């Protein structure tokens, strides 16, 4: 086989978004030598797309807020499929991590008292989203980036890792290629942290970048890790719908947090319709438009608009309005912020103003936006232990969107960014502890040879399948069969199509050299997306109930039996095995919190 580069680090972090960089900082502070790999340039990770804010109960504005309320909001938002211990750690540690980020140099918006400004968000009882206008993710990423570079980070930019390397049961490194040259690379490490983000590119209408193909899930799956709750894919209620060139681009929930109003094509505020109010949220939201209006200025004595219900609820409502013929001209609903005045809109939502102005010729201070659901986030992923982010595979850790445990069946806005910091740090520390006790493993060449052959096959293949067109077919298939409203019939048809595309993918062919060749990159990405899609669809078929993001119109109710089960997907030889695992039971002192607030 051709020659390849080999480098060694104590710890390898795959992914340079918020979780990866925070893990790197933690491991470097523990005195370890850390290598970080990212598929793009440093600082371009999908974290920059997070807009609205980072949840953390600092109680700068609402004194009644506390970690306990954040805990309850997150469990309720996740329809109780979450790991309670992971959520407890998230809620308890988020405030420290936010304040630490400020010490690292992040410059948040300020309250009149000079503290970090907080805004209301869907499913959060109090104003809890610490933010910087509508570009909080960029602030978080750039701050961590500078800190990590200052801590001596060795970063391998534009490198794709395609396989974890094992020594017996243990993960001891990873294999991949430099995008710039196509040359292969082995990174040996005593521990590997996956921080690769989520997977939304297998859908046509998506707010995700090209990077969100599911590499991390597949790296872990192939190495024997358990994937959990893979059917839980979040549809953000407000993506752009017009013009077609921008369909799916995110419109931050911060618009509704600042008082933005949803209306259907007939001008009705449909979220006030009682049929959209889930039982778990009854009594917690304004029941009249008048009260919702008062809430904008007086949050202590009024309840928020039902426009701020959790994302799964609002997405379903929009879907049903459009299906009932109440949509707008381009098949969405209206989101209106004009009543808040141009000055506030430009100050608090500057990138939304710019986005609609530049891409849709629309002045959001004067006209309502047209919005509709778009794929946004994946709650499912690699099952990780709450305290350490360890997976079931020795030496392998997972943090951030690729990991699973904290968000349950639906993630609340603002909980992604605190997830990155809290569990990035914990993963870095736990992996450091492990690496201090471990030695480098030995890697047999067969693993490397097999993977290199898979990567190079499309150059040598006599097939005619185009990786781009296959990707487009997969996106159409998943959009049709595994979207918001799911049925057994639709999912079965979707599964057949995905399996057929997997067969066709054996005949992929690409032209050109290995130097920065996007066709070649795509020929590998599509294999990852096809397998991830199959797992999503199979898990969605298995969970015969409606819970959080999983809405089965043939099983429209939540089933108490399913409330106690997480779905687990593992690789058994060459076959995919789906089993269940009991949802960890909340200890009485935490369960009591819910009784007290009833």
């Amino acid at each position, binding site marked *: 086989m051709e020659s390849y580069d080999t480098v060694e680090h104590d710890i390898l972090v795959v992914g340079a978004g918020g979780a990866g960089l925070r893990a790197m900082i933690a491991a470097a502070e523990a005195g370890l030598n850390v290598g970080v790999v990212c598929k793009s340039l*440093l600082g371009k990770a999908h974290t920059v797309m997070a807009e609205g804010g980072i949840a953390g109960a600092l109680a700068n504005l609402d004194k009644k807020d506390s970690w306990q309320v954040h805990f309850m909001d997150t469990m309720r938002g996740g329809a109780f499929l979450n790991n309670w211990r992971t959520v407890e750690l998230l809620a308890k540690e988020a405030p420290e991590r936010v304040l630490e980020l400020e010490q690292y140099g992040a410059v948040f918006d300020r309250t009149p008292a000079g503290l970090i400004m907080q805004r209301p968000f869907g499913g959060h009882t109090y104003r809890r989203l610490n933010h910087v206008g509508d570009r909080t993710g960029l602030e978080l990423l750039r701050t961590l980036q500078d800190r990590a570079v200052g801590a001596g980070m060795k970063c391998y930019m534009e490198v794709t890792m395609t396989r974890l390397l094992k020594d017996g049961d243990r993960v001891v490194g990873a294999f991949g290629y430099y995008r710039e040259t196509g040359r292969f690379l082995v990174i040996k490490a005593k521990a590997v942290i996956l921080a690769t983000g989520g997977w939304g590119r297998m859908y046509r209408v998506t707010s995700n970048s090209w990077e969100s193909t599911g590499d991390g899930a597949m790296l872990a799956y192939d190495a024997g890790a358990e994937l959990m709750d893979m059917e839980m894919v979040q549809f953000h209620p407000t993506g752009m719908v017009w013009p077609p060139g921008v369909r799916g681009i995110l419109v931050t929930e911060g618009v509704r947090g600042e008082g933005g109003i949803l209306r259907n094509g007939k001008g009705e505020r449909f979220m006030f319709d009682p049929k959209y109010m889930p039982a778990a949220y009854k009594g917690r939201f304004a029941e009249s438009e008048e009260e919702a209006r008062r809430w904008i200025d007086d949050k202590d004595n009024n309840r928020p608009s039902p426009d701020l219900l959790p994302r799964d609820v609002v997405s379903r409502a929009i879907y049903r309005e459009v299906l009932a013929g109440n949509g707008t001209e381009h098949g969405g609903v209206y989101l209106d912020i004009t009543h808040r005045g141009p000055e506030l809109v430009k100050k608090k939502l500057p990138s939304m103003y710019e986005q609609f102005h530049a891409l849709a010729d629309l002045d959001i201070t004067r006209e309502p936006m047209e919005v509709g659901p778009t794929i946004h986030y994946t709650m499912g992923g690699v099952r990780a232990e709450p305290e350490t982010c360890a997976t079931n595979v020795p030496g392998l850790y997972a943090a951030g969107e690729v990991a699973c445990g904290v968000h349950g069946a639906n993630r609340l806005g603002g909980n992604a960014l605190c997830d990155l910091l809290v569990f990035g740090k914990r993963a870095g520390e736990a992996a450091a502890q492990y690496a201090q006790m471990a030695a480098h493993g030995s890697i047999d060449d067969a693993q490397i040879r097999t993977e290199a052959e898979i990567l190079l096959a499309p150059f040598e293949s006599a097939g005619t399948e185009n990786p*781009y067109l296959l990707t487009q077919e997969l996106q159409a298939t998943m959009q049709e069969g595994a979207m918001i409203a799911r049925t057994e019939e639709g999912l079965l048809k979707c599964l057949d199509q995905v399996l057929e595309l997997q067969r066709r993918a054996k005949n992929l062919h690409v032209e050109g050299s290995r130097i920065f060749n996007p066709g070649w990159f795509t020929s590998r990405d599509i294999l990852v997306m096809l397998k991830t899609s199959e797992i999503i669809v199979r898990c969605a078929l298995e969970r015969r109930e409606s819970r959080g993001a999983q809405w089965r119109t043939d099983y429209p109710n939540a089933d108490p039996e399913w409330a106690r089960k997480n779905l687990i997907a593992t690789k058994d030889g060459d076959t995919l095995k789906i089993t269940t695992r009991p949802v960890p039971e909340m200890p009485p002192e935490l369960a009591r919190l819910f009784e007290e607030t009833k």
Partner: protein
Amino acid sequence: MDTVTLRIFRGDASGGAEHDYEVPTFPGMVVLDAIHFIQANQDSTLSCRWNCKAGKCGSCSAEINGKPRLMCKARIRDYTTDSAPIVVHPLKAFPVIKDLVTDVAWNYQVSAKIAPFTPRADAPKPFVMQQIDVDRVQEFRKCIECFLCQDVCHILRDHNRKDAFYGPRQLIKLANLDMHPYDGLERRKMIREEAGVGFCNITKCCTEVCPEHIKLTDNAIIPLKERVADIYFDPVMWLARKLTKKE
């Protein structure tokens, strides 16, 4: 179906040539959509960088009809007032790797020389800062590192003084640190000597191309020049330095 012609640079460090591609158009289409169409349907080896396609990551920088732009925000419609092709080239200030992809590593090397934010020893925890005191800092922190300002700056583009000038991007990074109410490091020496703020002669080209509408020259670079002038060229300060023998 309406179509548009794109004339795209294809090549690498050893040279290259423009190639024409005809692409169907649709409402709201941007130049990056056209690139994606070519990759999927005409030539899958056409290289470019992109990530978010929403103007937030700063990856898809290129020169469109000679002007540095983000391809994801460049509307096809704005270039089709006549029938001339849309010309797309890589950034000129950096070496070409392949097609529209350039080697921007120098920007990262320079950035790494700038010490990260380091709070003053007497800073309160948590920080107490008024919005008005951080407005300017936040403006600079909107930067998405697309490097269009570095590309257009004639000190880097035409004179290639990468040895003596950090460029507008890194100057606003220094400005955001220097203007942070609680940053504790003395950064003026670096601003003048290593970053070379004196090289900027205020043509404001960087401000014109910034997709985040940051007023780099007026709000960052000119104030930095003044900050440096205070210690290096103010006669009172000069005398004080001489008397106390401090450099």
